[in-house]
């Protein structure tokens, strides 16, 4: 089979079936990381853990991209403050669940209640943050939201709020050291008393742990994978929700707001209300997704919510293509696996097989050596552990410039889903009449 016909075949097989496309993508990413693991000589536990980490990040970024797509892709609301709303979600949940006796103290509420509370708070704050800017053009909303997210982050970091008492209620953000969060809730599936330090497994836990133990797979990894499976269910639910919204009359109004707000308004739609609702809903979802993200780690700190976090989500969205929910998942998965995690694995592979020394201290130093047509310093610099974030940023920049120039629509942004809850053909209308 020639390359051309293979490509045609692949496009025909994948292009019209999103489920196939997503499964193929998951297999491809999984295969790539399995290969990395083999090259790096990982044990089975290490390999499975690598796959877990990539799957985890892919699911999180896919969900974040879906939420941002609701705001930017559907309604054209340029939310540059995603990180801030994520922080509000996580911190609200953390403060609501923290025991009254802990340091910093919290409200001691059960986790489900706290999650609902956090979603509401994030949604309301999102709606309020959008209120003054919503009547302005998209770029002003971007400025307001990016400033807002920094205010949130700096407030969470401020020592004044680390352990405070307002109106007789003691609580705190933990300041720069961060905030402890409840332990991974998925543990309840496997342990009789998940809160204990050395908990005893329940029947299901005992069965699974003893089954995988001979393979060298640790208990924490089983829990990690169970969490990823739960995340994928959440992702599926969110995806379904977004498709429903996109095809609803509500989604139709959003689509028209993105195109021409004045016309939409002239047709009798209160565009401000639609925008505020959409913004609040998107922010609430971001808060929830951030909770899902941090619950597996057990703690949160302000430095996780820098503006770069927002840009990561935007890049994921741009890769997949704005406006397409399938594109958001593809973009989120590709971003997390290739751009976010990829560089450090490539570094480790390079470091494993090339013995490089005398690495320059800075990226500038490494690049300067390129003038002498010697790429060894750059390579040596790149394979250092500390330089990964600089390299990742550079890679992100390159990908972004390339995308904007060559594929401004992203991978699936050219798709046009019809915003309607029913098929619109005349045929369908007539069949209805005949019923």
């Amino acid at each position, binding site marked *: 089979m020639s390359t051309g016909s293979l490509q045609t075949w692949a496009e025909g097989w994948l292009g019209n079936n999103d489920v196939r496309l997503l499964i193929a993508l998951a297999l491809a990413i999984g295969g790539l990381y399995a290969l990395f693991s083999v090259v790096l000589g990982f044990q089975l536990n290490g390999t499975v853990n690598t796959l877990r980490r990539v799957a985890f990040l892919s699911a999180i970024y896919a969900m974040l991209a879906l939420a941002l797509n609701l705001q930017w892709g559907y309604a054209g609301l340029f939310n540059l403050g995603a990180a801030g709303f994520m922080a509000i979600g996580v911190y609200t949940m953390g403060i609501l669940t923290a025991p009254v006796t802990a340091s910093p103290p919290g409200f001691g509420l059960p986790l489900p209640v706290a999650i609902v509370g956090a979603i509401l708070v994030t949604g309301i704050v999102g709606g309020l943050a959008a209120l003054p800017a919503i009547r302005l053009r998209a770029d002003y909303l971007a400025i307001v939201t990016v400033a807002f997210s920094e205010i949130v982050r700096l407030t969470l970091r401020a020592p004044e709020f680390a352990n405070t008492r307002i109106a007789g209620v003691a609580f705190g953000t933990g300041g720069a050291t961060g905030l402890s969060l409840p332990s991974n809730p998925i543990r309840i599936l496997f342990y009789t008393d998940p809160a204990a330090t050395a908990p005893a497994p329940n029947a299901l836990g005992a069965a699974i742990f003893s089954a995988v133990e001979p393979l060298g797979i640790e208990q924490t990894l089983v829990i990690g994978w169970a969490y990823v499976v739960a995340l994928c269910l959440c992702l599926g639910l969110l995806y379904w929700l977004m498709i429903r919204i996109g095809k609803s009359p509500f989604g139709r109004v959003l689509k028209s707001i993105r195109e021409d707000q004045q016309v939409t308004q002239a*047709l009798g739609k209160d565009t401000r209300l639609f925008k505020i609702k959409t913004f609040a809903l998107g922010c609430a979802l971001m808060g929830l997704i951030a909770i899902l993200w941090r619950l597996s780690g057990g703690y949160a700190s302000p430095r996780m919510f820098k503006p770069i976090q927002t840009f990561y989500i935007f890049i994921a969205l741009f890769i997949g293509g704005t406006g397409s929910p399938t594109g958001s998942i593809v973009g989120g998965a590709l971003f997390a696996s290739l751009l976010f995690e990829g560089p450090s694995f490539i570094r480790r592979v390079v470091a494993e097989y090339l013995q490089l020394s005398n690495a320059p201290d800075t990226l500038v130093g490494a690049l300067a050596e390129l003038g002498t047509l010697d790429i060894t310093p750059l390579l040596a610099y790149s394979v250092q552990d500390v330089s990964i974030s600089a390299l990742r940023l550079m890679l992100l920049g390159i990908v972004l410039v390339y995308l904007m120039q060559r594929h401004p629509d992203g991978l699936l942004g050219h798709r046009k889903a019809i915003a309607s809850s029913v098929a619109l053909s005349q045929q369908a209308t007539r069949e209805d009449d005949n019923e």
Partner: protein
Amino acid sequence: MSKNAHSARNDQTQKGQQEQILKVENLRKTFGGITAVADVSFHVEKGSITGLIGPNGAGKSTTFDLITGVQRPDGGEVEFNDTEITGYRSDQVANQGLVRTFQIARELSEMTVLENLMLAPQNQAGEAVWRAVLPRARTQVVEQEKELREQAWEMLELFEIEHVAHESAGNLSGGQRKLLEMARVLMTDPEMVLLDEPLAGVNPTLEEKLIDRLHTLKEQGYTFLFVEHDMDVIMNNCDTVIVMHQGSVLTEGQPDAVKNNDKVLDAYLGEEVKI
């Protein structure tokens, strides 16, 4: 004739025979030092086709903007169906049953023709996000969508653009866009439509069709106020003609009377006209 010709006093005597659907009183708008609309007053009869004419810069489009809430007037009053709508937002004006088209057709180009039409109807159940999502509430949404779909197809047939139903609106020709915009506005189920140059850039065959539709719709009870530059079209199709010049109403009346008014001729020839 001055604006006093249509004062409230006059209006009362006319009630009973002719119902005034739109009343504009002393409407005023200035941009910096320029007075775009200066004390404009006129009434539009229910079920009529009224023409609004005047040379470029006479303030016709601004008057439309002020009536439909795209811009806020600095003074004056707008009353529609005996409800004061001065200063309403444009969506509120549209919800009263008064909708407009734009001078340059503003189709939602990334959306298909059908989507454009399905967007327009007011108060759709599925515009509430929870109803669009929750399974039980959604059955109601789907039912309504089916009704709207049928209406949309009827509208496409009325304007004879059913062959482009699934096209992106951006791919339509200039004339088709005008038809689409008319169809979309009618999908909101209005009582009165303001048409800002609906025939600009439309070929003669299509123009005839559009005018034909206007008369059909008029018979169904719709009211139209439209801005047009083609004198023949105005004179042959309007019940009443309002002439604007330099931000004010110069004269209004039956097409024949307006045609023979010297001031109108002077205004169009660029002469200084005392109002």
